[in-house]
């Protein structure tokens, strides 16, 4: 211990516990609002605004019951969110995989510029493109459709998806595909049977990014949809009414929006971290 203290110039306990303290602060910073939202969704309105706040109280599930059973239930919004998020994920991952593979493998002149151009489309803020897209969508009859929203979300996800998948394909040695082609595979078979299975984790990561973006998007959903296709964030925003804000349902809706993402994240985390090429090549 004394040696390491000397080398870093920090006292032993700081070196040892400092990182934990820092991570603890970050964790509280991140998790406290979510925790607040979660417990508030279980409180009756009066105790929600008590000061000092009560830690022990009689929990109620009334807001959750209202949300699904009461007036203006959240279920159609939830279904719309799921359809749009999955559609976006499928489209972004498929196109991103193909595009990323091309960018990784093809020997194109000006490949760097092409790659930069792809990511640069993501640099404009969403609000800049929303109005022109609205007009385009109205000509194409894509307003108030799931497909319209999926296309809008995919447009914004695709640059990330392509870049991410390109870096995953870069990790797969080209020799594997060459070996497959000599073994009797066509280029397509080498891609499908050798490279594609190896970028599974990358496709998972891309899907998560696409789903999170789509699930949380508010602006596109607000402008391009009406009753039939509105998503969860719109449902939450509608709880701010002229007669007041329905805080309990806002909190409960927040929890319902958050929960699938957290569950999803925990499930795929392990797969994302696992080794990518799994010892394909001895360098």
């Amino acid at each position, binding site marked *: 211990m004394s040696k390491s203290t000397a080398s870093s110039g920090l006292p032993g306990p700081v070196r040892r516990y400092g990182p934990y303290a820092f991570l603890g602060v970050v964790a509280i910073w991140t998790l406290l609002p979510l925790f607040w939202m979660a417990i508030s969704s279980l409180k009756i309105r009066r105790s929600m605004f008590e000061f000092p706040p009560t830690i022990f109280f009689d929990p109620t599930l009334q807001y959750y019951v209202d949300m699904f059973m009461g007036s203006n239930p959240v279920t159609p919004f939830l279904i719309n969110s799921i359809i749009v998020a999955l559609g976006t994920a499928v489209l972004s991952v498929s196109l991103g995989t193909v595009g990323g593979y091309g960018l990784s493998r093809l020997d194109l002149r000006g490949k760097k510029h092409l790659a930069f151009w792809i990511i640069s489309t993501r640099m404009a803020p969403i609000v800049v493109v929303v109005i022109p897209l609205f007009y385009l969508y109205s000509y194409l009859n894509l307003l108030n459709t799931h497909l319209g929203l999926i296309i809008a979300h995919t447009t914004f996800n695709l640059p990330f998806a392509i870049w991410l998948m390109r870096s995953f394909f870069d990790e797969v*040695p080209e*020799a*594997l595909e*060459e*070996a497959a082609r000599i073994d009797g595979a066509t280029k397509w078979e080498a891609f499908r049977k050798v490279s594609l*299975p*190896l970028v599974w984790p990358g496709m998972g990561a891309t899907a998560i990014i696409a789903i999170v973006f789509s699930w949380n998007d508010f602006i596109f959903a607000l402008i391009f949809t009406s009753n039939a296709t509105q998503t969860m964030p719109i449902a939450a925003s509608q709880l701010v009414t002229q007669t007041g804000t329905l805080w309990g349902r806002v909190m409960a809706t927040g929890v319902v929006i958050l929960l699938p993402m957290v569950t999803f994240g925990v499930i795929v985390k392990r797969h994302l971290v696992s080794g990518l090429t799994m*010892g394909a090549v001895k360098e």
Partner: protein
Amino acid sequence: MAQIALNHVSKAFNNGSIVAVNDLSLEIEDEEFLVLVGPSGCGKSTTLRMIAGLEDPTGGDISIGTTRVNNLEPRERDIAMVFQNYALYPHMNVRENIGFGLRLSTDLSDADIEERVEDVASLLEIGELLDKKPKSLSGGQQQRVALGRAIVRDPEAFLFDEPLSNLDAKLRKQMRTEISRIQEQLGVTSIYVTHDQEEAMTMGDRIAVMNDGTLQQIGEPNEVYNHPANQFVAGFIGSPSMNTVEAEAVRRDGQTVLESVTSDAFTYDLDATGDTNADLPIEVGDRVTVGVRPEDVVLRAEAAAFEGQHHTTTVDVVEPLGSDNLLYFDVGSRTWTARVSPGFEPESGTSVHFSFPRKALYIFDEEGTTVESRNLADPAEARQVTHGDGGDGVVNT
């Protein structure tokens, strides 16, 4: 099985600015084991990749058997390749790795494929590894799987791209023998690329030496070793490398003498033995390079041990190898090496005397082309000859 022919094959990259392979013509006989050897970047791997179909030649024809394969996909060429990094499919176990090619390129039933995989696995002694993933195998085992993947398909030809360079020295020697044994057993035409001249010498039926994209020489290992076509081949084949010194042919007392061009006064009297080679195409005033193999250098502690011409030098370093010692010393500002018997181990800094037989001499002209190469029937002959013993120089241009 088939023969493979390359006819004036060239490969240029970047619109012709980089020529990797330049007008290469080669014929590999049926069942032959040809080793393509050369330093990194000499075009040997590119040549192999063109035969495999992974690179398109920019000129010339490649044929396997009687078929011109230039426009065929790799899978249509019926060849198998072993890669330097093995290129095992990491998501498949050993069984699936070996069987992958059979599944894709044949109509064999699952049972037949299984049987052939098992056969190959037992040939390579990896039967107990069949259900493991490549990640959990050692380098040597991965190498065997890669070999198995090539063998199982019973192809027209094997292509090896530096397959042993990632293994440690001991395993490399073991696998070297094994690959040779299997190749002989199966009788499959093989092309083996390596930068290791020792691998080339020990494994090849014939070796083809390449440099800068150009074929330097092709021949049986001993022929290439004893009669290199030029100074590059002479220096590349053989370890330790051939000793060389730049010299000029001068006339002295009616004798033709090779005299070192650097400050050091190294001279070698070509006619001292009275056995002048009249055919030796050297004129007085010609610049040449003199070469001697380390095993042909005779070193003695006493000058009296030599009857004929000899030189005195100072021992720089002695490297004991067990079976023999390597002695390093300076000649004409070049470091020379001599391979001597293990009993002879002078301290560094001691004065020693060296000579070499006339028959052991290599002479290269200014372009590096071999003018004369050594003419020792038996390399051990050198050690018994303690003075310049004249003989017919073999002219090899």
